[in-house]
């Protein structure tokens, strides 16, 4: 074996080990360093969406697109179609309450995306139109 061959073997071994095993330092052991790569892709993507069911107190589901006059549903602006937080849900509830009329008792069951699954944020216990009525002095 010539010195060149030995050098190639060493270089290959070091580089291959770095690429194949280096991520274990971060992903396997949970360490943080930029010196080795971690191939964490999309684990923290799409955490900006909540699943929301609007309904009345008797359980009647509310089609928010129909109430807001949006047809077809996929023509809705992203800010209407995708609700990413409790604030977004409450904002849309105010719009729905305005369309549904005074005296509406609107509820929502909602859960928001997390890397580990879903996190419940609303359980349908609050009248989402009450805050709007309070603001209007009703």
């Amino acid at each position, binding site marked *: 074996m010539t010195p060149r061959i030995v050098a190639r*073997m060493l270089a*290959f071994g070091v580089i291959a080990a770095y*690429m194949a095993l280096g*991520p*274990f330092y971060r992903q396997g052991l949970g360490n943080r360093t930029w010196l080795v790569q971690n*191939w*964490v892709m*999309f684990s923290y993507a799409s955490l*900006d969406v909540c*699943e929301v069911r609007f309904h009345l107190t008797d359980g009647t589901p509310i089609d928010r697109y129909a109430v807001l006059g949006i047809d077809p549903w996929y023509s809705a602006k992203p800010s209407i179609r995708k609700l990413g937080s409790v604030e977004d849900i409450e904002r849309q509830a105010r719009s729905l309450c305005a369309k549904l009329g005074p005296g509406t008792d609107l509820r929502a069951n909602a859960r928001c995306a997390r890397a580990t699954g879903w996190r419940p944020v609303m359980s349908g216990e609050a009248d989402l139109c009450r805050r709007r009525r309070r603001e209007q002095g009703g």
Partner: protein
Amino acid sequence: MISLFAREGSTRGVGLLRIGLALLCWTRWSSELLPFRDTGAEHWLLGASFFLSTSLLLAGLWTRAAAAWAAATLLYMFVGMGILQGREAWTHHHTTLITIAVCLLVLVPCGGSFSADRWLAVRRARRLGAPPPDERGPLWAVPLFAVQVSAIYFWGAFDKTSWAFASGTRMTHHFMSLYLGSDPVSPWVAAAMMPVALSVLAIEYGLAVSLWIPLLRAPSIAVGIVFHFLLYYLLPVGPFSLTMVLLYLAYLDQDRLHAWIDDLMGWTPAPPRPG
């Protein structure tokens, strides 16, 4: 095993890698490095370094030096600006992969084919009345591209190995965030997400290994191309999917690839030289 580090092979595969990676560099970074984006001297110097080095790399002129220059530029962008100066978008996995692959180009004879260097060598030989040089060079480092791809498949799947992903919940998040919005997904969509997620895991863990097995290589490449096409089409993955498919070239028998290109182009191979 030692023969891997001693033998030579066709340079066409690494020539194609060189061209593809230079174009992927432009796809990812060129817009951000145009001179009108910033009037600072550092920006202009960086842009000049990027465009000159990657242009030489694409053309295959002074290729080894161009590869080293491009690799140094991308490493500065990744470490110096991405990590140390907090330009976070330059540290994402797709930019990391392109940077690593360009660094590996320094170790392979990527100017031996489909390059200005090759053209100049052929012209030189013709002037001397000699046969053109063989498109061959030491390919000991080519499997490193494949090691990187397999590592990405394995560790990417490792990261996804959780109930949140395998149950289809995370896939549901992606489709709701990108397409469906906040209305509860229909039961059939929810039911479909779990087999989709399990398929993704199976494909990634499988490809990490199967691409190395000659009997499984062709179907694995077919599965991988379809897989990455779907990711590229449906999710905001950027040039990552294209890079991964390009690097499949490293798994191939380089001399068989050479012969296949000859066949594709209708070229008659030169008779073997005596001795």
